[in-house]
Structure formats: C-alpha cells, structure tokens
C-alpha cells in the first residue's frame, strides 16, 4: 500500500470478483451505496453472491438490481420490504434471507472488523431472533450473543478520498460504510473526488486509508 495512488480501473477491480463470493455493501435505501460498482458487478456476470447490508433498496436502485437480476443466493439484511423481488424470491424458496435487527447488524459487522468474537445485546430477546443463539444472563438481564460478520469484499461509497485512501462520507451516506471498511478481505470505495494526501483535514477522515485497498472514481466507466 505504499503506492502513490490507490485508484484502480473497473477492469482491475473485476479481478476480485468471483462466483459465490460474499459482499458487504454500504448504504441505506441506496444512499451510500456505490452504484457504479454495483452496476459493474451486474455487468461482470458474477453470481451466487451473498450480500450483506442494511436493506435491498428497490428492484431498480442500489443493491436491489443484483437481487432483481437473480445474481444473489443469500441476503443478510435488516429490511427487505422496499424491494418486492427480494420477498418474492424468498417466499418462492429461490433466495435465502437472514433478517437481522439493524443495530445488531451494525455490531456484528463491527465485531468482524475489530477482532471481537461477538457482542451481548438485549435486542431480540423474547423474539424469534433468539432462535439458535447462545444466551447469557448478567444481573438478571438476558442477552443474545451475536457473532461477527465478514465478507470477501466490501464495496463502499464515499464522497472524497485522498490518494492514500482516506475517506470522507457525505451526510446520511455514511451509515454502514465505516464499519464495513474493517470487515472484508478486500475493500474498495467508489468516490466522487480523489485529492492528494494532506488535502483532507486529518480530523475529518472518517475511514483511515490503511483500511482501503482500492478507489474507483465515480462515473469513471
């Protein structure tokens, strides 16, 4: 990672795609999802994906298009209601869906990136979410042990990057992106702008560049 700039082309990025891979995707109803990379995943023909993120957006937005085009084998998300294709394929038995409370999803991804073996959360106790999970009680309060999530690839959307890969997200597009930056074997961010190292205020960096393997300049394709 001592190279002068982490910018790559879609061609170079495609070397990281393979059938059956798992992908963490940033975004919340499409806001903060790297649309260019999603479109390239679609164009690449890669399939049997496991996708992990907050929601499956709509059938024609964000990550939703991969579901609609049947490239996905399994979804791990907190919400699928806005994409009717996800529910339809799930009920038809064509798609495996694991629903995870949103806060638990954030913690599980955080654990995956932080070397933690899990967290104890009260969320889901007394509901079907607790099925099959280890439970611990302390001081009379029950908690579920929720285990880490990681993926082969994380695809992020940031607003600005410097050539070392330091990232700045914009407004509500931050959401899951900073957590996913630690939780995959390869991390690529699609960004609107790439500046020189030193041009981003070090206080403002939201994801340190050492976590980012590659940058795609938005709309470059």
């Amino acid at each position, binding site marked *: 990672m001592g190279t002068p700039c982490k910018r790559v082309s879609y061609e170079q990025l495609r070397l990281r795609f393979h059938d059956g891979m798992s992908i963490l995707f940033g975004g919340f109803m499409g*806001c903060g999802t790297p649309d260019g990379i999603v479109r390239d995943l679609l164009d690449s023909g890669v399939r049997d994906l496991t996708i992990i993120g907050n929601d499956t957006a709509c059938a024609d937005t964000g990550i939703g298009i991969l579901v609609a085009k049947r490239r996905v084998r399994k979804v791990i998300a907190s919400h699928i209601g806005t994409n009717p294709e996800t529910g339809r394929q799930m009920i038809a038995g064509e798609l495996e869906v694991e629903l995870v409370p949103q806060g638990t999803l954030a913690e599980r991804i955080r654990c995956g990136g932080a070397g933690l073996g899990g967290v104890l959360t009260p969320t889901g106790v007394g509901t079907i979410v607790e099925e099959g999970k280890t439970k611990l009680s302390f001081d009379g309060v029950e908690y579920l042990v929720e285990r880490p999530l990681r993926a082969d690839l994380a695809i992020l959307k940031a607003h600005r990057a410097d050539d070392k890969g330091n990232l700045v997200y*914009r*407004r509500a597009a931050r959401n899951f992106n900073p957590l996913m930056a630690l939780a995959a074997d390869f991390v690529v961010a699609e960004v609107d702008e790439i500046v020189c190292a030193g041009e981003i205020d070090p206080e403002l960096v939201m994801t340190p560049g050492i976590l980012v393997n590659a940058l795609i300049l938005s709309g470059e394709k």
Partner: protein
Amino acid sequence: MDAKNLIACRVAQELKDGDVVNLGIGLPTLIPDYLPEGIRITLQSENGFLGLGPLVGDPLPDLVNAGGKPCGMVPGTAFFDSALSFAIIRGGHVDVTVLGGLEVDQLGNLANWMVPGKMVPGMGGAMDLVTGARNVIVAMEHATKSGGAKILYRCSLPLTAAGKVTSIVTELAFFRFIDGQLVLTETAPGITLEEIRAKTEAEFIVSTQCCEMKLPGSTPK
C-alpha cells in the same frame, strides 16, 4: 380531525422540551406538526443523524430520512455511522420512540414487523428502538380494517420486543403501562368506555383519573 391526525396530535402532547425522539414511518411523521408552542424536540434518524427537519427548498445530496426520502436538517445537526446511531438508540439516549403496531398485548409486547407467510419486510431498526428507547409509544388505529382487536390478551404474531411498550395511543383511547399493568387513562372525545371495551381484547384497568383526551388546538401548524 381524522383518526391518524388525532393520534398524532395526542402523541405530540406527550413530548417534553428537549426530548430526543425517533419517529417511525407513516402516522408518526405527522407528530411534529402538532407540537405545543415552546416544545422543541430533536429528531433522531436511524440511518445516522440527529437534527432531522422538514425538507425546505431543493433536496441536498445524501440528506435523506430513514425511509430514504429527501429531508431537511436543523442548525446543530450531527451525522454519524450506524454503530453510533444504534449505540444511541440501544443505549437509552433516545427519550421517546413512536411507532406503529400490528398487535400489542397487555404484557407490553409489541408485534409490528412480520405476518408469517404474508408480509416479511424485516424489523429494520424497530427491535433496537423498542428495546432501547426510554419511552415506547405505539401509535396506531384501535382496530384492524375488518374491525378486529389489535390490543390483545397475548400477541399472536412474532414479537418485535417483549414487555417494552410504555403507552398506546389510538383514535379511541390512551393506555399506559403502570407497574406492569395496562391502564386506560384517557378516552377520545365522544368515545364511551363501552366502545373501548368492545374493541379491546386485552384486560385493562380504568384509571381513577381517567378523563377525556386532551387535544389542544385542532389544525396542524
């Protein structure tokens, strides 16, 4: 005032100056229109910010609410990632969450995220909100469209959280959970106790201070 606006208006009177509030989609989003004079609340948006406001003028890029729709922000807004967003929610830093319900029962259980075999949108942030917020207000129409009770002896649908509801506001009644018991504290204007009993399956106590619902003003600001 129709049922939804009546409910929103009554819930708004429950909020205190300075409260941090998370509003679910649908009916709860009407609540800010009915806030009493001098009551300022801070709206938390689970996709990652505090300071949600109405959309004024053109939408700003990446400024969306938890429904993915363009919104505004107030001076003093703060953006953050999903881990901090749910640390705030689960950690008890949200004073009030207001959300809809499919069923509530007399143990304070809420079911609002799935109807097995029919509708499985996912829990999104609801399980964490109901588990973590200090006050959980269920704001919903009193009965189903076909007239069936929604305030039950025991929920039949999969729970969102067990025993966490603090109040229920409908177009007919205001119930509070006091020392683990469901207590009717207000009846809507023109509604009799008999009508409420007829449309409520749950056993409840009628407060000795039970009175007519306070609905100041009438039209939204």
